[in-house]
């Protein structure tokens, strides 16, 4: 039984010498590096790569590399397994370990089930543990449907996986084997958590933080659809709901203690929590004390994602969707809205985005930041397009188009 968890680390990988990501196919001999800088590496082609964007889609894993975040080289679908069936699997979760730069990929083959693959060379080669990396114990009737989220703890090698059905797993070996965090699985509320349209899962895992006041290695916040936000302050031994003030339009009680369909929770640069809910956008410096609506000024309060600025407090992005009945962008227009004042006001931020009618929405893990000093922001859509911008460019540009549905993106400066 596992009843303890660890603390948070920064999302950005720093100062770790990186290997070159090899091609998916064919393999070519690497060329000798001609320039060496601490934050740059050389790919097999000899080009300089500064940023790696990992893209999980409904049909396979792609990567894009760039040294300026405007021109990207796309690769994929990556060959995760020699049998080639996982290459077309749905990639619902990607994690990049900020210390080791190991890339973890949670993929689900509709035929042959879920598993976790990893790469220690930035996507050049992929490996799957010989045993099932994540499996429910024998005394549990449920079995793993898919991984929804990876998060990394303070201790090297500590990885958390939020999965479907609603469960949290923990690894201490870098993501090769996981153990169920039992107290959350045994929570008396669990029988009242039920699946939304996307499945019942813990999709947000935020180690080390339960308030804006500071970090604590014994603390963690998770969010689930449905179920809401839960927090532990004692290494995972006990968990309490932290969803007061968040609406549940699908329940008789509009503001229940728990049971909400929270779609994503993010933490701002100052530690303040933000939530994009199944109708409703919220802010809280202390989720256990309640949440405040910040949806006013948005074209819709429905959506799946909140992307927080890694350095500037109060700055974040949402990606509105019409409603729970209509999962399309408002006005048939791909929209990003940005706040610079913690949700007190919102501004459209769509410079560079398609102006023609657009029908692809952004899913709950379809956005990320590379957390660089001049941070890059990324999002992908169900129409298979991926866009990027940076603080300094303030204009979205296309990274890749016409991919399968984008389910998740993660980026790192290397």
């Amino acid at each position, binding site marked *: 039984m596992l009843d303890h968890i660890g603390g948070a680390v920064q999302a950005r990988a720093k100062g770790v010498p990186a290997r070159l990501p090899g091609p998916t196919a064919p393999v070519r001999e690497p060329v000798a590096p001609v320039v060496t800088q601490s934050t740059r590496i050389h790919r097999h082609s000899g080009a300089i790569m500064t940023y790696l964007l990992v893209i999980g889609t409904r049909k396979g894993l792609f990567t894009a590399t760039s040294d300026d975040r405007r021109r990207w080289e796309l690769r994929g679908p990556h060959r995760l397994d020699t049998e080639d069936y996982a290459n077309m699997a749905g990639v619902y979760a990607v994690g990049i370990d900020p210390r080791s730069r190991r890339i973890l990929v949670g993929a689900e083959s509709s*035929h*042959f089930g879920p*598993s976790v693959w990893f790469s220690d060379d930035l996507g050049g080669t992929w490996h799957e543990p010989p045993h099932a990396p994540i499996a429910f114990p024998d005394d549990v009737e*449920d079995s793993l449907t898919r991984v929804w989220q990876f998060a990394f703890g303070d201790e090297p090698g500590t990885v958390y996986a939020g999965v479907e059905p609603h469960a949290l797993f923990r690894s201490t070996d870098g993501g090769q084997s996981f153990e169920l965090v039992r107290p959350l699985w045994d929570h008396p509320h669990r029988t009242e958590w039920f699946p939304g349209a996307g499945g019942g899962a813990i999709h947000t895992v935020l180690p080390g933080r339960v308030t804006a006041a500071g970090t604590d290695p014994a603390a963690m916040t998770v969010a689930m659809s449905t179920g809401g936000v839960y927090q532990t302050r004692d290494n995972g031994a006990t968990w309490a709901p932290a969803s007061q003030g968040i609406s549940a339009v699908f329940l008789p009680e509009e503001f229940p203690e728990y049971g909400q369909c929270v779609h994503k929770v993010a933490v701002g640069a100052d530690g303040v929590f933000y939530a994009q809910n199944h109708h409703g956008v919220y802010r809280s410096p202390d989720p256990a004390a309640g949440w405040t609506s910040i949806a006013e000024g948005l074209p819709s309060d429905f959506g799946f994602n909140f992307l927080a600025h890694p350095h500037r407090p109060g700055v974040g992005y949402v990606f509105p969707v019409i409603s729970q009945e209509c999962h399309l962008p408002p006005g048939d227009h791909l929209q990003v809205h940005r706040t610079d004042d913690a949700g007190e006001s919102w501004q459209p931020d769509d410079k560079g985005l398609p102006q023609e009618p657009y029908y692809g929405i952004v899913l709950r893990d379809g956005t990320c930041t590379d957390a660089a000093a001049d941070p890059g922001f990324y999002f992908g859509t169900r129409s298979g397009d991926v866009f990027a911008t940076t603080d300094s460019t303030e204009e979205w540009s296309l990274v890749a188009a016409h991919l399968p549905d984008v389910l998740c993106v993660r980026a790192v400066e290397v």
Partner: protein
Amino acid sequence: MGVTVLLPQVLQAHAGGAARIDILLGAPLDQAAPPLDGAAPAVTVRSVLDELARRHPGLDRRVRDEQGRLRRYVNVFVDSDECRALDGLDTAVPDGAEVRILPSVAGG
């Protein structure tokens, strides 16, 4: 008794590249000691898959989930019959039968 397990190409790497695996389960029927209740010892799809899992655990993960349930879009035929149309994993497997594992028609 013996059965032959036939694997689709996509799963053969998990069995060292083998397309067919011959396995012996228990004693030959005519030599088997009758159990106390008088019933014949049963060889079932489950026991065949259990033996397959013992030899190739990575293969079993593709066919069954961690609770031993057949994955939804994996079919197991005993000779010409898909086991779900019979008794599922409890389907009896006769001596000399072919147990064929196939991905179902699914996906998009």
